[in-house]
């Protein structure tokens, strides 16, 4: 859908610039925008722990008075309450950033639909939890939230008696109401735990917590604001007065001014439309069928049963199964891709030494054919650095043919790059190879940069061969808007290469023979 694509492009551009700034200020390892999802979990843990403390002092028989007591008298009560609130506010921001990121990157359809839908449901539950939390305080905000919520619920034919009547002043608010509200406030986080499990159920090695440095920095900052700008008490709820001016938490009460002028029917209509459009994003953001990438496939003749693709797959889309008609020289197990879980990231192609797995036209063998054509067209010489750039990041240079005199070889994901490609380029006579991957937590395929780094420098299967001169290879990380980073890396690398002897092109270099040789070595 062209509108969806334009929306995604626009959002991506904004996020890429924000990422670039954050990377400059905090470094990509601690960029909070990259860790937005994990930050939500960390913040909700803070909310949980502080909530348990506050629970000891909350009284359903005297909600406002007990919260006032927590704020004014209980040991650290004011700070803990502040931390509870600020952490829950920050969680909403982090959820929105996380959702926006995945939307912009087109990571909301196909096998990722479950994560998208469960994530939106989580956001709804977080907002609902906040709603019950503010009603618990029973100040003016709590009163308005309760009355508005009741007004909206009363239009639904689910309760025999209108809930609104509980808040008209005819009778004191029953303690049962505050008990139920408290119960919901406690039960909802338990449901959230289940939803988080569902949310990450289709990814391998989910990163549930941000790096410690970032996590403690965020918690420390929130604690700081809780101490220096503590949360106070608004006027108590008064059912016999019009709700006047009072402090509202806009992260959880943003909908009140939007809903109040309209009838319940109109509000529900808007809710249904917004929920429908966002929940159905997997349908309207997915590419047209002819442009949808195909899932990986395994060439069972080449599979050695080493399980590396099974280990590396970030989506647990590959399983190892018994081979059906095994020949004596073949392994017992063979890799099998589940197309329903495969997002076509191609990371398996980079992990398979015998080049027997990967999405169509992106397997190791296909990559070698492509790089052959690239070398034939550009013929990189000893003074050239070939930049292997990830389509999604790498300073947005992947679409170019050259970058400051360096030929560019674009790949769909740096993590899907087979290390033989690097070796091939160097043996073809290039002075050096600069691989630009996305920063680790910004990889659209989750673990591309991580695995590539291990294959290049830590002998992870399919490793870059020892015979490759590591001085002529460099791996750098740059986001989509970090063109300056790429330029800096290129300049540094040029200086480093200038100190080396001139690169030699292998005299008897034959691409076809080398390909066969590489495959032959592996299959042996």
């Amino acid at each position, binding site marked *: 859908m062209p509108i969806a694509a334009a929306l995604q492009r626009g959002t991506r551009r904004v996020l890429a610039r924000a990422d670039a700034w954050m990377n400059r200020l905090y470094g990509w390892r601690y960029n909070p925008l990259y860790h937005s999802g994990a930050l939500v979990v960390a913040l909700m843990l803070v909310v949980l722990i502080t909530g348990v403390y506050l629970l000891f002092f909350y009284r359903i028989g005297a909600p406002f008075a007990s919260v006032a007591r927590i704020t004014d008298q209980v040991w650290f009560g004011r700070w803990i309450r502040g931390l509870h609130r600020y952490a829950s506010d920050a969680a909403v921001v982090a959820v929105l950033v996380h959702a926006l990121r995945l939307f912009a990157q087109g990571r909301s359809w196909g096998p990722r639909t479950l994560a998208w839908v469960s994530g939106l449901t989580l956001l709804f539950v977080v907002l609902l939890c906040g709603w019950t939390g503010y009603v618990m305080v029973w100040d003016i905000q709590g009163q308005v939230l309760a009355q508005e919520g009741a007004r909206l619920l009363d239009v639904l034919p689910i309760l025999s008696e209108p809930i609104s009547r509980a808040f008209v002043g005819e009778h004191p608010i029953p303690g049962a109401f505050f008990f139920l509200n408290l119960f919901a406030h406690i039960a909802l986080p338990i449901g959230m735990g289940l939803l988080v499990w569902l949310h990450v159920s289709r990814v391998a090695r989910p990163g549930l917590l941000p790096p410690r440095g970032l996590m403690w920095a965020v918690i420390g900052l929130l604690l700081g604001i809780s101490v220096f700008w503590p949360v106070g008490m608004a006027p108590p709820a008064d059912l016999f007065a019009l709700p*006047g001016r009072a402090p509202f938490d806009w992260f959880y009460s943003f909908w009140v001014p939007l809903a109040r002028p309209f009838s319940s029917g109109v509000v529900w209509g808007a809710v249904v439309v917004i929920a429908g459009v966002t929940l159905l994003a997997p349908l309207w953001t997915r590419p047209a069928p002819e442009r949808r990438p195909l899932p990986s496939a395994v060439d069972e003749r080449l599979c050695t049963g080493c399980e590396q693709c099974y280990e590396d797959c970030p989506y647990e889309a590959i399983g190892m199964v018994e081979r059906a008609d095994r020949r004596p020289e073949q392994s017992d197990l063979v890799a099998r891709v589940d197309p329903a879980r495969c997002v076509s990231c191609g990371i398996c192609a980079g992990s398979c030494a015998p080049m027997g797995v990967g999405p169509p036209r992106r397997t190791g063998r296909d990559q070698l054919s492509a790089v052959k054509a690239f070398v034939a067209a550009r013929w990189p010489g000893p003074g050239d650095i070939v930049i292997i750039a990830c389509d999604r990041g790498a300073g947005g240079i992947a679409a170019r043919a050259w970058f400051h005199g360096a030929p560019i070889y674009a790949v769909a994901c740096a993590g899907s790059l087979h290390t033989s490609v690097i070796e091939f380029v160097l043996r073809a006579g290039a002075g050096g190879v600069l691989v630009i991957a996305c920063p680790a937590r910004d990889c659209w395929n989750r673990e591309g940069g991580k695995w590539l780094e291990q294959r290049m420098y830590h002998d992870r299967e399919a490793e870059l061969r020892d015979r490759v001169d590591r001085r002529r290879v460099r791996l750098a990380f740059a986001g989509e808007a970090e063109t300056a980073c790429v330029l800096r890396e290129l300049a540094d690398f040029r200086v480093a290469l200038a100190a080396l002897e001139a690169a030699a092109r292998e005299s008897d270099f034959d691409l076809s023979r080398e390909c066969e040789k590489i495959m032959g070595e592996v299959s042996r």
Partner: protein
Amino acid sequence: MSAVLRRALGAGIAVAALFGLGALSRAPYTADGARHAVLRLTWRARGEQVEECRRLTPEELERLPVHMRQEERCEGRVPPYRLRVSLDGVRAVDELVRAAGARHDRPLYVFRELTLEPGSHVLVVRFARDGETPTGARRPSEEDREEATTPARLVLDTVVTLAARRVLLVTYDEEGRRLVVRYAPTR
């Protein structure tokens, strides 16, 4: 950009973000800034239930399972009430209040809010059963009728005084079986 400047800028942005978070966490909002007063009419009424019964034909009985073959089928409902409110002699509300439930056999719920200028007003509220009991209908037994406590006609004729931004409640007193005015409880 030097490392020191970068760190300072990073810290500054973090503090600014925190400040934004704190500000949005307590930004003032006026849910209702009007100077008027509100007259709130709200009560729950148990209208007298009437039943319309008819005898099933032998064919209809034949179609039912054996254990459900009751010769007479009765459907109960609560007749609607009409709510009329006038303020200072001017009709402000005239509406039919139907009993809740798909079959209109549940209690009647009244909930109306009227905005008023602060000051004293002559208030007349009439809440009376609308129409006659239909022909063929029968009233429930004495035991059932005891539950139907709301009289067929309720009238409140009084002078009320409202302050600006305050809410005055008109409700039904089940013990006194009459409409009453309630002011805010003293704190």
